[in-house]
């Protein structure tokens, strides 16, 4: 479910800006490191973890906005290759900076104290933190959907995805909107990283792994499509788990094959719209 959080940020950026943001995985990693750092500073206590997670996500969002404002916007008119390579350069620089700050040792964040227990659901034991994430995913998804569908900013974002020139001509500040899209998407990525940090170890290299997974999700579901991303995350999870059950060694293969198949038959994804 957390993958959905990350993938939706990626999808948002593609939908509006038509850019594949390789650095999105790095934002996710920075979110996890940020959460670790803030937990170190704040100490363990009720509610402290959530504060740390939100703080980390906010910091990552600010970074995303800054990068867009200062550098990325100068590349909009250029070829896709330059944009792709720029986001890749970001991956290199940011993940190496993370290595400088936090070293190569893996970091782990302890679960928030109020959620260390576990529940049993249908005879299976699930740690309560994992259960919460499971519920939080759809909740954030709904909130996000609400923002996109019902608020003024959301309406602008959807409009920009359809036709940015017209939107600009109608007097909307498209350039500021892009920055906000970047901020929002980075926030989602950072939040995903922060929330996952108690479940998985935070290590350098987690960024290049997760970005590929997130790619698969958004490509299957449809780049730029919100429910498509949701569907993509579900399909990805199912294929991976059933793949492991049926032919354990080739489950990764099945996932990429599915991605290729979707691209061949419907390049814009299951629920996406074709680009002009």
């Amino acid at each position, binding site marked *: 479910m957390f993958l959905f959080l990350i993938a939706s940020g990626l999808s948002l950026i593609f939908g509006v800006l*038509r850019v*594949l943001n390789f650095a999105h995985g790095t934002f996710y990693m920075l979110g996890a490191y940020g959460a670790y750092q803030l937990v170190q500073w704040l100490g363990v206590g009720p509610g402290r973890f959530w504060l740390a997670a939100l703080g980390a996500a906010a910091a990552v969002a600010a970074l995303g906005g800054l990068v867009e404002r200062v*550098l990325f916007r100068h590349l909009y008119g250029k070829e896709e290759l330059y944009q792709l390579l720029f986001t890749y350069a970001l991956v290199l*620089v940011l993940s190496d900076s993370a290595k*400088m700050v936090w070293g190569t040792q893996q970091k782990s964040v302890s679960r928030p104290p109020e959620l260390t227990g576990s529940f049993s659901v249908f005879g299976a034991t699930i740690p309560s933190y994992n259960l919460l994430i499971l519920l939080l995913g759809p909740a954030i998804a709904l909130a996000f959907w609400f923002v996109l569908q019902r608020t003024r900013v959301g309406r602008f974002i959807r409009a920009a995805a359809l036709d940015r020139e017209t939107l600009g001509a109608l007097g909307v500040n498209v350039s500021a909107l892009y920055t906000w899209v970047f901020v929002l998407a980075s926030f989602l990525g950072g939040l995903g990283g922060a929330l996952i940090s108690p479940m998985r170890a935070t290590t350098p290299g987690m960024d290049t792994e997760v970005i590929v997974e997130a790619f698969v999700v958004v490509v299957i579901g449809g780049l730029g499509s919100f429910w498509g991303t949701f569907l993509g995350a579900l399909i990805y999870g199912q294929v991976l788990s059933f793949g492991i059950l049926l032919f354990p060694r080739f489950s990764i293969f099945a996932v990429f094959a599915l991605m290729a198949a979707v*691209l*061949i038959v419907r*390049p814009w994804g299951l629920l996406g719209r074709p680009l002009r």
Partner: protein
Amino acid sequence: MSRVPWAPIALVAALLVPAAGSRFYTFLANDVVIWALFATSLNLLVGYSGLVSFGHAAYFGIGAYATGLLMKKAALPFLLAFPAAGVLAGAFALIFGFFCVRLTRIYFAMLTLAFAQIVWAICFKWNELTGGEQGMPDIPYPDLAVMGRLPLVGALRVSDHYYLLSVLLVGLCLWLLRRIVRSPFGRLLTTIRENPERAEFIGVNVRRYELAAFVLAGAFAGLAGGLFGIFNRGVFPDFAYWTKSSEVLIMTLLGGMGTFYGPTVGALALILLNQQITSYTEYWPFVLGSILVALLFGFPGGLAGAAVALWARTLGRLRSA
């Protein structure tokens, strides 16, 4: 521009590297030579045909595994195993490319990435054939006893012999690639890059040409991979991982897309730079990323592009003076 025969000079210079007697320099030079071929093959797609492949490492990896497997498991001689790398990589490029060229721009890049990840996943998991995650160590050197009997080079090390072989083979491949780029076929690729609708309009089957370019680029990348597997003394799944694809893209861009020897310059510059910088700091990716940002903003034409522009400007100034 000038009548200086740069290519033969570079070839001779490359052949003289082992004469310096340093095992390390030969190693570096060998690395450069192989990456030069890899980057040039990508340039055929990105630079000349305008197809941005984000999964070019797949064919490099396939070539490396093909040569490695044939030489190690089937004990075939290099003379057969090396062309096999190109043929196999080209065959895969034909299958994958068939689907890829149907898509445009960003979707093309994504599908090439997806196929590359499939190749990577297979290499990573198929333990019996590829050695899985551990890769395949101990690829034998080709039997170069012939070189031992030649004058001048006979006394050199085996690795030097292999280096000389790589230089000659890469030189041959680059010459072929140059012929391709300069041929009517190559010109048409550039036409397609500039204006696909127009190319279609004058009766060119755009997809077929793009596919042909894709297959050729894949085959040459496979040959580079075959050479690299032996040079590296082992073949590992991350040869086909997506970060490799972006590395070679950076090289191509650094040297200059669309200029024929640009990628070679890029490979040389990047590998030497890597060598220098990693001796000062372990944070090479940080430096590489910064270079890349500077390049994207400052010199979109790459080093070769910048040099050509500078040359043209000086010439212009001389004429006007």
